[in-house]
């Protein structure tokens, strides 16, 4: 997700300004999503494009025109209409996009993990990062408290660089860079004579190592100008990110996007990581993935 200066001449900087694809639905929050997206597009220097997946009728077209007139501070917004499965259409339309933005439910129902919602499916299949807005602000403000959850096994420097760019653009109060640390079956060692101190030591030592690996990555990314806190969260992947975001009143949670391929029955039955976070959004969520090289 690049940050470019919209005033720059594309030919001079070598890369044209990026694009933000905003998915509009026939829902009451669509205006707020458009407004939030418009603010963010200015902050990130991205061109904005609106998309509705559904039949184009004069009434619906008029409705979106009115919505955009009320929501955007500058004129010029128009909506592209396409039909088909939403995730397929987005996957196609967002080929040249740097960010997809759409509204989402805060909480999925009990079977949400099994029968994926639109937002969840788009986050899984979009070719670029996806921003889900569960409760867009009527008076959009920059994201001030960011929580970036790095992959538990191999944190991506590319993701970190994008997060830092976003943090600089939004002039954050605090960027929390965290890693969830799951130690499966550690409690079972108690049955084999391990004591609580040993299991606690194992947790703390691994947490320390994880924090310092992340800090190394951040130092290598020249993250000096951004206020950053590094944490490792012992507990279940996906769930700890939600708890931490709530405790720190985060307004944007950034997580690695779930894998593109269809999730297995097992993963649907026992969601973990981003899949689990997507079921219960504590705030706006950016599912990050590397952009496809053209």
């Amino acid at each position, binding site marked *: 997700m690049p940050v470019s200066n919209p005033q720059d001449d594309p030919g001079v900087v070598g890369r044209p300004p990026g694009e933000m694809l905003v998915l509009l639905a026939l829902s009451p929050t669509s205006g707020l999503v458009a407004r939030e997206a418009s603010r963010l597009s200015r902050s990130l220097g991205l061109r904005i494009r609106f998309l509705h997946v559904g039949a184009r009728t004069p009434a619906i077209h008029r409705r979106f025109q009115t919505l955009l007139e009320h929501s955007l501070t500058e004129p010029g917004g128009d909506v592209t209409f396409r039909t088909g499965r939403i995730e397929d259409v987005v996957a196609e339309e967002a080929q040249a996009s740097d960010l997809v933005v759409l509204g989402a439910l805060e909480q999925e129902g009990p079977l949400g993990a099994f029968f994926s919602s639109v937002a969840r499916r788009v986050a899984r299949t979009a070719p670029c990062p996806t921003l889900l807005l569960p409760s867009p602000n009527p008076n959009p403000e920059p994201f001030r408290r960011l929580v970036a959850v790095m992959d538990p096994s191999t944190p991506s420097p590319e993701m970190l660089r994008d997060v830092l760019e976003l943090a600089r653009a939004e002039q954050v109060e605090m960027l929390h860079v965290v890693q969830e640390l799951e130690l*499966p*079956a550690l409690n079972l*060692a108690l*049955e084999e004579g391990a004591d609580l101190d040993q299991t606690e030591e194992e947790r703390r030592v691994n947490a*320390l190592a994880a924090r*310092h690996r992340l800090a190394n990555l951040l130092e290598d990314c020249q993250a000096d100008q951004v206020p950053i806190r590094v944490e490792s969260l012992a507990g279940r992947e996906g769930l700890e990110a939600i708890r931490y975001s709530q405790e720190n009143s985060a307004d944007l949670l950034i997580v690695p996007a779930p894998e593109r391929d269809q999730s297995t029955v*097992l993963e649907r039955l*026992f969601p973990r990581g981003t899949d689990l976070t997507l079921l219960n959004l504590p705030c706006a969520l950016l599912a990050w993935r590397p952009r496809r090289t053209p």
Partner: protein
Amino acid sequence: MSHAELVSLFLALGLLVGVARALGEVASALRQPAVLGEILAGVLLGPTILGTFWPQATARLFPETGPVAFGLQAMTQVAVVLFLLVAGLEVDLSRIKRQGRMATVVSVTGMLFPFALGFAFVYAAPGLLGKPPETATFLYALFLATALSISALPVIAKILMDLHLFRTDLGMIILAAAIVNDFIGWLLFALVLGLIPGRHVEEGSFDIWTTVTATLAFAAGMLTVGRVALNQMVVRVQAHSAWPAGVLALCLSLALLCGAFAEWIGVHAIFGAFLVGVALGDSSHLRERTRLILHHFVAALFAPLFFASIGLRVNFVESFDPLLCLVVLAIACVGKILGCGGGAILAGMPSREAWALGFGMNARGAMEIILGLLAREAGLIDDRMLVALVVMALVTSMLSGPLMERMLARRKPARFVRYLRDRGFFILGSDKDPFQAIEAVAGGLSTALDSSLETLLEAIRRRDRLTGNGLAPGVRLAHARLSGISAPLVGVALCPEGFRSGGDAEKVRAVVVVLTPQDKEAQQIEILTDLARTFLDARLRRLLLACSSALEMRALLRSSQSEPQH
């Protein structure tokens, strides 16, 4: 139950739990599986030792019939049900996918190969494998194949912890594969028990196919709708009852209720308890502390009771068949080590790591023993086979860790003591605050550096802002990576009475400054984790804080390397 019988029952329970726990602790102190000591307690108190030399005492303490025997039997049944409840709590089935192709391959080959080997051996040489004439060959083969393909997650977790391999790629692959093996193994075993004809002849019991269908439906229901329902129940109970009593009662009662249901449909109660554990373990509302309390409850009381009871039921000397023990041990080891190690090599793991993985997965431990005892109670195997399974479980558990360590032949990780500098060691007064202590140590170390003290302190401050500085109670870490050094530098400032602090926070008594080369992350992490392990050990920390020179600290740390840390 009469007054005398009650006295006998409590005496028996008290002795069993006390002796088993004590011997379990001794085994742990000798770095052997705790279950070894616990079984030994039963061997000492049961027919094998006490019964041989003083049969009246054994008969009086642990009668084979009557209300006391019934009471003991009931307690061990409850114990095994709770054991499976906590085993289920740690099952995370989606981990296999997250650990990637390697874990999937190891899990499949590590299950299929020993299963096939065990199954084929029973058909090829049923007599050699101790098949009782009255047991159907298919059922016996199915049982032995299942028993050989299971791994003991608790033993594996402890080994990985002791070898500091828990969060390594190898450790996570082993855990993921073992979790899946455990899950499939218990499902298979439940089915084996369901297939035993004797369980379906009692009045009111179901026929085999009804049992199998109901078992599958029960499992599917618990893992889907049941899981969602339990999650909702946990949150409600936690919100409206005292913690942890309310939620503990919920977990225990659900395990017993589902155990009862599993028995009713014709499989063993452990199956119901295990499924409850799996469903509860997935609950996003079940607190970590609750899990720990459950684990402690079972590990402290029910596990010793259960394992000691094995020694009460079997005469280990009379039922010891060396040939059978050897054959079972050989098939178990060959099947598991080849299955897992070979699978890992096929999936692209370097051979030494792959064989280390095979040795790790070979640990059977308590799970195997539970399986054996339940099979004996169901009349599927005889005492000789039970003893062979116990021996196999103990031998594989004892060998797994050392063989894994030997196979990995790892380079010794960097220890901070090697880089401790005399000129970086200070004993300071309580008039200094921790940052002044950092300045003093950094000043001492900076004489060996190109960069100025101010640059060094700024690098430490920057790192501190990122990661925080807590290392252990009363110990503060100050760390920076520097581009101008080729080897790490470590310095320490101690203040036995505690540095001056502005707030009510715990007094800092030691400040450790660690400077590492910018481009040597592995060495940096090894030194930091070594520091953390050292200072988190309360006994060692106390001794270190009392050191008066770098030399004394070095001597203390070097001597502690040769001792087990716990």
